[in-house]
């Protein structure tokens, strides 16, 4: 079964700006897909359709299926468990007074007992290497730590699909390295919308280029990234890692 199936997805904002045009896409279980393209291409908008945040007025006919389940209003609770969406700004996503409560937010919605919730939280924090951070308050953390807490919050729900919106934005080189190592160890279908082409080269097997709301190219990551003409045409460029031969 496909992890994500999208058929003829279109979306237009209130002010008539068309953000997505007729997107059709299929992502298999366990794939690691880099979603790249210039600003305004529709990457974030697309991700918001994967767990039903958009369209706001949930229509009856679905254009997106997650593990075969149509993304329509009645299915949203289970879809949101299955798809972990990491937003661009961790500040908006870390809305609880302590790290523990924030990571526990998702599991608590499942109606689990406090003991089980605690177990999930500890497990998630361990995965992101933030053991012992339970009682810390979010505004005291560094951006990298905030990012990882957000990730832990998603992992605590054990999603099968992880959708990440600009995960390396604002991170210092060490933070980026830590995140990359972390993402490698997580077993889930990954869809990463990003400007960080090095990340795509290192982590993703497949790259999808979006431009002006449509899919401009779709293929193996390294092939796409190495295609200089294609990259430049869509406001991107060939990442350094492919320009010179690296021992990596």
């Amino acid at each position: 079964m496909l992890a994500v199936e999208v058929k003829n997805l279109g979306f237009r904002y209130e002010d008539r700006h068309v953000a997505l045009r007729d997107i059709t896409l299929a992502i298999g279980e366990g794939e690691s897909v880099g979603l790249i393209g210039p600003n305004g291409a529709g990457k974030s908008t697309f991700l918001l359709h994967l767990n039903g945040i958009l369209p706001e007025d949930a229509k009856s006919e679905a254009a997106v299926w997650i593990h075969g389940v149509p993304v329509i209003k009645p299915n949203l609770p289970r879809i949101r468990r299955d798809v972990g969406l990491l937003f661009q700004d961790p500040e908006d996503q870390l809305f609880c007074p302590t790290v523990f409560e924030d990571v526990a937010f998702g599991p608590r919605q499942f109606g689990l007992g406090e003991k089980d919730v605690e177990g999930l939280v500890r497990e998630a924090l361990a995965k992101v290497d933030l053991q012992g951070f339970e009682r810390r308050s979010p505004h005291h953390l560094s951006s990298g730590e905030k990012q990882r807490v957000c990730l832990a919050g998603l992992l605590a729900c054990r999603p099968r699909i992880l959708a990440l919106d600009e995960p390396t934005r604002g991170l210092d080189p060490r933070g980026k390295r830590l995140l990359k190592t972390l993402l490698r160890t997580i077993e889930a279908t990954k869809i990463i919308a990003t400007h960080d082409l090095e990340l795509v080269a290192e982590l993703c097997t497949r790259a999808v280029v979006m431009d002006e709301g449509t899919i401009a190219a779709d293929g193996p990551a390294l092939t796409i990234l190495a295609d200089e003409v294609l990259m430049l045409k869509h406001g991107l460029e060939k990442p350094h890692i492919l320009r010179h031969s690296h021992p990596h």
Partner: protein
Amino acid sequence: MHIPDGFLDPKTLVAASALSVAGLGRALWVLRTRMSSRKVPLMGLAAAFLFVAQMINFPVVGGTSGHLLGAVLVSVLLGPSEAILVMSVVLIAQAFLFADGGVLALGANVFNMGIAAVLGGYFFYRLVAAVVRTEYGKLVGAAFGAWASTVLASICCTGELAWSGTVAWSVGFPAMTGIHMLIGIGEALITALVLTAVYRARPSLMSAKDGGTAEPSAKPFAGLLIYGGLITLGLVLFVLPFASKWPDGLEKIAAVVGFDAKAVSPPFVSSPLADYRVPGVGSLSAATALAGIIGAVLVFTVSFILARALHRKSSEDGAGRRRRPGSRI
């Protein structure tokens, strides 16, 4: 105007707290029926906004500075019931985090600044905006309402202090309420300026009712009745005994409420002593009341002129930038 602990006596605390709980309950009830869960983060952030905004120093002459209270600002932008909750949350947080305002006195502070100021100010805002039928009518209403909210809150505060026997009405009214008639001008000015800034960036908010976030309630008169009743009750308890000419009116009120006036100590000190006289006008309290009425007319006029000037200026600067909802990519 945050009353600390120790200034109000038990009966005043109980009465004010009861009114506050009733007001909060009503606000919650109103919102439950027409609120989507979407509003909760909005109100939470509005509370954070207000908390921060209240800390900003608006320099006045010398080293002093004025601060925004924001009761009318929030009620115009989000709606009166929302504003009641937002103000109350801020006041509660201030009491615990800052020790700004007492903990037991929260009942009174919430009533004064969270309910009376909001509802009274909002009432005048709607009234004036309906009367001044121009594009900037809302600004005039908001400015005047903001002034009125400050004065009303201070009147209730003075009344509570007098009913507790802490500060005589004849001293408190000129001192506290008198000062707040001036402070209210600052509130009016800041409210008008902030609203102008908001409307400039988001013109759609200006024409929408209550900032576009309030939906019309099914039974507006029920709300009017309940909220109006609460304010009236508060005024009756805290203000009427002192503002009325008949000292025994106090006993009548006390009898209605169930307190034996003579049994409660300390004795009510509103009438005989410490009533300062101003030549030509009579008591200082009367002078203050007169100043209030003149002030109201003045503030209304100034609000009108100010609003027109602000509106003209922002129209000249062109329409605000349009922002697309949720369009970050």
